[in-house]
């Protein structure tokens, strides 16, 4: 499912074709949960990330016209809505966990929200990686395991040992060298795409 196809489904839904709603859900929900889970890691558990994602999607389904396609991709917009909900969820959790006074709870909640700002930056980075993957997957993913390499790189993981384990390579120098080659190859593809799009 490409973004264009998703946009077409959105247009049909707004146009009154209610029957396409679940097709949109199928396409975006798992990806949305994964994004929220990876970009708001401070949430107490995995269910919180799912809850935030479900809430964002329900708000969209109830009023799909609120999404303005010209401003952001649907998944990007949903991720932002989910994140806002997740932050509110986190504020509530902070109040519930061992604070004796409202003032202390408010202070702690604010501090935790402040701590999440780097997470917001990570989310934006993640979304950029998502865009790259969506637009150029044919050029990025040529060999088995390329998607795994790309996924780890998108999370800032460049440790050859980690890549080697992910690729099922031997956890020794030969495996690490092979993994490093795969990472470098992926970097090269990304650099080429970047140069072509800059020119």
């Amino acid at each position, binding site marked *: 499912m490409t973004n264009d196809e998703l946009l077409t489904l959105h247009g049909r839904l707004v146009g009154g*074709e*209610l029957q396409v709603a679940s097709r949109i859900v199928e396409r975006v929900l*798992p990806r949305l949960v994964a994004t929220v889970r990876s970009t708001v890691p401070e949430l107490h558990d995995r269910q919180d990330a799912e809850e935030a994602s479900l809430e964002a*999607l329900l708000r969209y389904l109830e009023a799909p016209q609120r999404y303005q396609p010209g401003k952001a991709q649907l998944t990007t917009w949903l991720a932002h809505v989910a994140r806002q909900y997740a932050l509110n969820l986190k504020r509530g959790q902070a109040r519930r966990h061992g604070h004796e006074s409202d003032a202390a709870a408010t202070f702690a909640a604010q501090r935790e929200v402040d701590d999440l700002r780097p997470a917001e930056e990570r989310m934006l980075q993640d979304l950029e990686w998502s865009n790259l993957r969506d637009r150029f997957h044919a050029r990025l993913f040529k060999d088995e395991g390329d998607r795994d390499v790309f996924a780890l790189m998108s999370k800032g993981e460049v440790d050859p040992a980690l890549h080697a384990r992910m690729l099922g390579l031997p956890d020794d120098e030969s495996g690490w060298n092979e993994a490093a080659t795969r990472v470098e190859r992926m970097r090269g593809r990304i650099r080429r795409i970047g140069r072509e799009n800059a020119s």
Partner: protein
Amino acid sequence: MSENEDVTMEVPAEVERLGGLLARAARSRSGLIASALAVWERANPDRPVAALLGCGDEALWRVAVTPRPGGRDMAAQAQRIAAELGVNVMGLLNILRFAETTARFETANDDGELLMAALDAEDDGEGDDR
């Protein structure tokens, strides 16, 4: 492989699991069909919606997360939804109408609106499903 090719990598089982959770969360959302299913189930515990719709869990959550049709287009919309998702159209229409009528009763006062609501529901029922 074209640049615009499908890049989604969801595991179908995960889609189904999350879809089920979404449908459950949607039961309190009046704008979605899930709320109508919830109204039906509360009033008719011995008649499960899955049996009425003639479908399994996979179709059921997809119906539940669909925006709830209403007004004059309800029958036509229900037909399109039923066709797309492979559920019984008459069952879906019954559930939607039941929920709509229940809502009318809940908001009616005792100045005759209750009777009006009942009559409206009766009129609606004579149109498309007979």
